[in-house]
């Protein structure tokens, strides 16, 4: 790989990282509004308020960056970056078309999971360094949730990797066949629920629960640092939706895959992202103990069952 190619790939990943979360955010604004009988943003930018999130970003940049007097300044400052960068690293490993990927590595499925697991560190750092009990509770909930849901997620991904016989996301898409939709269905459901929990989306948004612990770890954050945390949340939706598409929906498989592959990947991922938004509109928040019960009593056994099923089918057909 030449230096020029590396630069182009990096710039493309950063551009995707900055644009796709905004698209998901705008989708959320509009979908939520219409599901609730509202119009949503209509003025910014003219046509159906398409520039609303850019206007929001401009507002965040102008706000004062407040650091509480009792906070641990250094840790408080770098926490948003620690929360944000793992998602960018994760996005770099996900292919969106045949050969179209930021960094093609042999174990990319594993690399994405490894990168995503680090993101919670930013929430923990921010929650602890804020010297605020709501922040602290939010950070603790987030960490407990991540530890509980990382296991079923890794097991579900392991099942797909086993079925495809490779840890590479591109390889998984190449091996994928339509009947996997049924074969890997339990794993797909487990993965989707665990993904919702990992990115703190409703009904698993106890770590940020604005109505009880005032946005948890982000309580003390203002301006750009708060915006970075929000961007990390939407980047999380993008990464999880793309990962779900690549693992379970065949990525760029579809009619005219040779020329329209990227479109298929992005369209499928966008539908998954829209379903994640739909969940937010239609589900109440789970209670903390219900959350852990769901993970340990249901998701992990189902993921283990899926792994066993995959192993049996793989052994019988090969």
């Amino acid at each position, binding site marked *: 790989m030449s230096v020029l190619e590396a630069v182009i790939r990096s710039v493309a990943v950063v551009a995707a990282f900055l644009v796709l979360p905004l698209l998901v955010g705008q989708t959320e604004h509009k979908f939520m509004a219409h599901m609730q009988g509202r119009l949503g943003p209509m003025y910014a930018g003219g046509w159906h308020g398409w520039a609303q999130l850019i206007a929001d970003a401009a507002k965040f940049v102008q706000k004062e960056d407040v650091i509480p007097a*009792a*906070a*641990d300044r250094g*840790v408080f400052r770098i926490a948003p970056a620690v929360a944000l960068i793992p998602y960018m690293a994760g996005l770099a490993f996900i292919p969106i078309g045949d050969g179209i990927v930021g960094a093609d*590595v*042999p*174990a990319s499925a*594993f*690399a994405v*999971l*490894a*990168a995503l*697991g*680090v993101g*919670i*560190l930013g929430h*923990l*750092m921010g929650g*602890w*360094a804020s*010297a605020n009990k709501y922040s*602290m509770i939010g*950070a*603790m909930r987030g*960490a*407990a949730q*991540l*530890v509980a849901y*990382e296991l079923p997620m*890794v097991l579900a991904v392991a099942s797909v990797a086993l079925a495809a016989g490779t*840890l590479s996301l591109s390889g998984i898409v190449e091996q994928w066949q339509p009947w996997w939709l049924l074969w890997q269905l339990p794993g797909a459901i487990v993965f989707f629920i665990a993904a919702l929990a990992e990115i703190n989306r409703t009904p698993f948004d106890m770590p940020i629960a604005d109505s009880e612990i005032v946005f948890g770890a982000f309580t003390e954050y203002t301006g750009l640092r708060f915006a970075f945390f929000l961007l990390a949340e939407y980047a999380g939706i993008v990464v999880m939706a793309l990962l779900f598409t690549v693992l379970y929906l065949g990525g760029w498989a579809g009619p005219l895959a040779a020329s329209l592959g990227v479109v298929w990947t992005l369209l499928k991922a966008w539908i998954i992202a829209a379903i994640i938004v739909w969940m937010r509109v239609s589900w109440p928040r789970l*209670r*903390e*103990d*219900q959350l*852990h*019960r769901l993970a340990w009593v249901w998701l992990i056994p189902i993921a283990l069952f899926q792994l066993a099923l995959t192993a049996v089918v793989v052994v019988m057909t090969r």
Partner: protein
Amino acid sequence: MTTRDIVFICFAVLAAGCALLAVTTKQVVHAALWLVATLGTIAGCYFVLGAELVGLVQLLIYVGAVIILVIFALMLTRAPIGKHDDLATPGWQRAIAAVVGASLTALIAAVVLPVVTDAAVDIPASTNKGVSAAIFGVWVWPFELLSVLLLSALIGAFIVSQVVRAAGRPTGGEGR
């Protein structure tokens, strides 16, 4: 000296520096955070050496899970913000730790570094298939033994919590 050597030395120096900061800082949460940086840069060393899978496991298990638990436990103790001199360990403990650390370093260096002989060792390229074949081939019994050890620890933890509960002590919210 190749680019790979330079990158490796950068990661190694960073790892050593973070490790030093982890053991010398007076703030307990900072020590844990420096440990995260140490383990992360060691993962970087693995990547530079071509051991992709080991580096990813290092990130996923150590940075992503073990350290999260460590920090989680630390925060449960209300780890205070700011310096705390009463966290300092007595001098004799530091001396023993230094001696043990130095002798371990010397032991590993004697095995790994070509100090005695200058014979260069060829490192075969590590592939995911090679690693898995080794784990489930030659090393399958140690692997299974470790699984049994972890399983017994898990059952032990379960029994401890159940026995405490049966003894009638308050256990907090049993959610359903």
